[in-house]
């Protein structure tokens, strides 16, 4: 399977993602330049983390107009899988691939830490290798991760099982504040209506090697391999 990883000016997780796909997963990956109009036959597109266009205006607001995004949107419209991580999530929301928006963290602080998540749904092509309700640890690193949408949108996301990851207390610190950014309904990751676009603030690509603290991101990539077997 071929993964296409988009490099925008200011992306900084593109090589981490490349490493996760190629060295850990053992699959093929290609870096796609934002000015190109060619996904080079990618089966899965990843919008990686970073600070595309310096977060000017709003995070993701300018990147969504990069030439490659036309192809990414067409790929998504055809049902092609898209994983939008961190800044990629912000870009996907700005591009209308996902509902809602990501605002400045409620604390106003950039938060860089491993956090606990609950896997809320294992029906998706991105989460089938997790256990429902499984508690996992993934790193976050963002200043604008407060997921926001109107109540109707939030109700629909929950009703349709499209909230796949939620910030959750760990067993040890049940009383501690666990929502790192003030996201509405503790939302950390969502799906589009068709289920082929995943947006999430935590970084699964940085959690594929026990040496670096966690392998809880690996099942996400393995889920796609299983479901999108080519």
């Amino acid at each position, binding site marked *: 399977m071929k993964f296409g990883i988009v490099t925008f000016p200011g992306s900084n997780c593109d090589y981490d993602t490349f490493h996760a796909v190629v060295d850990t997963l053992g699959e093929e990956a290609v870096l796609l330049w934002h000015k190109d109009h060619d996904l080079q036959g990618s089966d899965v597109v990843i919008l990686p983390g970073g600070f595309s266009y310096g977060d000017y205006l*709003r995070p993701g607001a300018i990147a969504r107009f990069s030439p490659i995004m036309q192809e990414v949107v067409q790929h998504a419209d055809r049902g092609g899988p898209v994983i939008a991580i961190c800044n990629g999530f912000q870009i996907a929301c700005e591009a209308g691939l996902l*509902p809602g*928006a990501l*605002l400045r963290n*409620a604390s106003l602080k950039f938060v860089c830490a491993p956090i606990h998540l609950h896997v809320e749904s294992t029906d998706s092509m991105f989460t089938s290798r997790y256990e429902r309700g499984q508690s996992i640890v993934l790193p976050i690193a963002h200043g604008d991760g407060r997921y*926001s*949408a109107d109540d109707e949108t939030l109700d629909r996301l929950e009703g349709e099982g499209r909230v796949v990851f939620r910030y959750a207390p760990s067993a040890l610190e049940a009383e501690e504040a666990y929502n790192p950014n003030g996201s509405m309904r503790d939302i950390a990751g969502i799906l589009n209506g068709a289920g082929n676009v995943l947006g999430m603030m935590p970084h699964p690509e940085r959690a594929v090697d026990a040496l670096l603290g966690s392998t809880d991101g690996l099942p996400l990539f393995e889920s796609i391999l299983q479901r999108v077997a080519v």
Partner: protein
Amino acid sequence: MSRYRVAVQVVPRRGLLDPQGKAVADALHTLGFGGVAAVHVGRHLVLDVDAADADTARRQTREMCERLLANPVTEDYEIAEVTPS
């Protein structure tokens, strides 16, 4: 075709948590400005637009706001003024 200077204000939608505004309000209270009930921090954009007339410049700017300058999910915008420049 004339050139117009268009001023646009973009502010967080009322009702959404605005931590930046709250931090500024807290600082103003610390300075003794106890009468400040709320602060909302947004963006002020100034555009020089070439258009046939002021109404066209305003209409084009509104479209720019809808498509890029403001996020329709979380922000409100106001075209504050359109003046010949």
